[in-house]
């Protein structure tokens, strides 16, 4: 399985600002995924990021609010823009290997609190 790290692990932000979350993997992977876990809720997929192409967003999520970069096969960033208290969540990245292992492995998550 891949080893995934995320930065920051947690942050407290003011309303109207933005937060960029980094996800680093210890091996090259084709697909990276970003999920949101709202307080007391399950995980919801935000978008899928394939290296070299634009991210694919799920219904209810838009690029202006959640821009994603995927500059290489081991790294991705998710920005949560124009923050509001409703954005307070845990954001997790996950990866699935280049060989299509059909199993997603998750990072430790970034806990965001918006005041």
């Amino acid at each position: 399985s891949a080893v995934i790290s995320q930065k920051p692990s947690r942050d407290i932000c003011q309303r109207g600002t933005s937060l960029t979350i980094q996800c680093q993997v210890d091996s090259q992977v084709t697909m990276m995924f970003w999920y949101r876990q709202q307080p007391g809720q399950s995980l919801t997929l935000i978008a899928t990021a394939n290296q070299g192409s634009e991210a694919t967003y799920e219904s209810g999520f838009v690029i202006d609010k959640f821009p994603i970069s995927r500059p290489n096969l081991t790294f991705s960033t998710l920005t949560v823009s124009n923050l509001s208290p409703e954005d307070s969540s845990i954001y997790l990245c996950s990866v699935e290997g280049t060989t299509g292992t059909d199993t997603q492995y998750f990072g430790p998550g970034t806990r965001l609190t918006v005041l």
Partner: protein
Amino acid sequence: AQSVTQPDIHITVSEGASLELRCNYSYGATPYLFWYVQSPGQGLQLLLKYFSGDTLVQGIKGFEAEFKRSQSSFNLRKPSVHWSDAAEYFCAAQDSGGYQKVTFGTGTKLQVIP
């Protein structure tokens, strides 16, 4: 629409007792099935997965799960629960074919009492 249902939001068991967490799925074709565990303040750890073949799947930490096509279920079991098993457990499903979206259930929070 594809969905995963975990009917039990919260379960309390005594240490040493057996455990069964329920999961049902609704997919057009039999999906890949997973159980993940999330300890407080931690990310998700994969416990086990089912792709095909033997319907009884062994995982880490002494967990197993049984796939029942007729019931569209994938229940997680452990014969003897330890206090360290207290966590939230998520059942998840994914269409076959690689790099597909994973749909999660709402989770079951397990409390273990001495």
